[in-house]
């Protein structure tokens, strides 16, 4: 610490490093299953999806709605079958998985960043800014998430970039509210008063002392929000308001399968299982991470 000879303990922040944390997550069976499942799905999404057996957008109208099979159809093997336009479902599934993960991995850090900044500044400063922002948060959280997203889509239009924006807009208030509550409690603590006493600026206090104590909570919340974001993206795409063709997505595949649900049970089942496994993996990991990092957050596992 530059210049200061004053020593004060920072509570609750013994640097615990990532490695012991990972070990504690992996120690429980549920945590281990979650991480393993996620590893497999991530490998498929970011490795296998670049070498898919077929072009996920290539149509072949001579083999439409074909069930999964190992035997070649006109010289082509479609392991998971084909859809109404004769596109290979396995290829679409792999690319769709990648899109789902990419969207979630873009949306969650952006929402965290926005929520963190808003929550820290308003919680620390208080005053009219705090009052105004919290009313905005209240109002936004009052609009049911999907209705809000649908309304934003109506303005912004649909597509990959727009979906990321919609999800960030819908996501940040949750973080802002939680961060603000933490900061309100933290700013009364002795170590913040001590930092102020030795002449640290507000920005320095926030960055060095407050952020440190807020991060575990935010990390847990972010992990728990990942599956929520995946489901919301899939839901939008399912409704035809999310990712637009030719880019495949899991929700879109489920949406299209509605037309043939009466004769092709595998069409909704394949992407459905994929989304469920993805969400399950994140839920298992998130639950465990919460128990390890911040047991007070029980009950936060929902939007």
């Amino acid at each position: 610490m530059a210049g200061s000879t004053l020593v004060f303990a920072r509570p609750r922040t013994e640097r615990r490093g990532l490695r012991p944390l990972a070990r504690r997550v992996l120690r429980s069976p549920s945590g281990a299953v979650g991480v393993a499942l996620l590893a497999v799905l991530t490998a498929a999404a970011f490795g296998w999806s670049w070498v898919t057996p077929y072009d996920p957008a290539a149509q072949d109208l001579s083999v439409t709605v074909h069930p999964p099979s190992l035997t070649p159809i006109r010289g082509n093997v479609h392991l998971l079958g084909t859809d109404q336009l004769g596109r290979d479902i396995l290829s679409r599934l792999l690319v769709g998985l990648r899109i789902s993960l990419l969207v979630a991995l873009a949306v969650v850090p952006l929402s965290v960043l926005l929520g963190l900044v808003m929550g820290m500044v308003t919680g620390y400063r208080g005053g009219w800014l705090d009052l105004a922002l919290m009313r905005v948060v209240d109002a936004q959280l009052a609009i049911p998430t999907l209705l809000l997203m649908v309304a934003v889509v109506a303005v912004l239009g649909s597509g990959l970039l727009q979906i990321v924006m919609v999800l960030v807009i819908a996501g940040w208030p949750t973080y802002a509210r939680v961060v603000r509550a933490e900061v309100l409690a933290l700013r009364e603590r002795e170590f913040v008063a001590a930092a102020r006493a030795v002449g640290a600026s507000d920005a320095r206090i926030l960055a060095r002392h407050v952020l440190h104590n807020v991060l575990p909570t935010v990390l847990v919340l972010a992990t728990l929000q990942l599956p929520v974001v995946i489901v919301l993206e899939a839901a939008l795409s399912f409704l035809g308001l999310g990712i637009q063709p030719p880019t495949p997505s899991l929700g879109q595949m489920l949406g299209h399968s509605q037309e043939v649900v009466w004769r092709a049970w595998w069409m909704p089942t394949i992407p459905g299982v994929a989304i469920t496994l993805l969400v399950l993996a994140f839920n298992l990991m998130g639950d465990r991470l919460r128990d390890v990092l911040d047991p007070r957050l029980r009950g936060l596992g929902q939007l």
Partner: protein
Amino acid sequence: MTAYVIRRLALSLVAMFGVITIVFVLLHVSGDPATLLVSQEATQDDIDRIRQAYGLDQPLSVQYARFAARVVRGDLGFSYRQGLPVAELIVERLRATFELALAGLAVAVLLGVPLGLIAAARHGSAVDTAAMTLALLGTSVPSFWLGLLLIIVFGVQLRWLPVSGYGSLEHLLMPAFVLGGFYAAQISRLTRASLLEVLAQDYIRTARAKGLAGRAVLLKHVLRNAALPVVTVVGLDFGRMLGGAVVVETIFAWPGMGRLAVQAVLGRDFPVVQGAAIMGAAVFLAVNLIIDLLYGWVDPRLRAAAHRA
């Protein structure tokens, strides 16, 4: 109590005002709101006419005041697709949404609470593990897939239930289960956690130590205290179901507000989308207000806390 009621009421009104503001901002961030309010086939003449009719050529502050005044009077504009007032269209659909949310709530409570009770009673056993695995699956299966799955099994294969539509109890079963299933899973986890927490409290040990029968402890001390967080979440869930049935209503062609909103976006009928967002928020806030007021009445601690704040 009066101070508490007034305070809660004021907070809800402020939030509603915020909702109106958000929707207004939403309409204007796209650049030219007039293009959002007309159909795609509209000519430049139509757009100019809309701009004048809605006062979109006025300064923003004037527009905002007019918009807010209009919404407060219950005027949500006109749907150009159906040529009817948006408020009328939505009120027509609210009944179906309300029925579905009530049925979903029944599913969530009737499945979730017993599952959580059983898991807590057999804490640490195989029954507990099984119940919580089921709950985890319940929170992980997305509603749109569960809905299609049920349609395949009960509608297409077994032919027991109609796959879509509205009117009879048979029509209600699948949508209610799909809507309530997710919340049932969450409620079961919460019920279990809440019970276990109360069971670990000192006053339970005291009650046991002074020789109270197991049943008396359970009924008088455990359930009463464990119920409060569960009831809170059930109330919140009801509010969410009222506004969040968008997907379920679409899958089962349920004629509710959520489906209306989706169809409106697909048909570029912005006034209807706008109205649905405002109405959804109003319903959510109203439900929350009622729950909070009931609480203040039941639990004097809350009133005191609100008074201090």
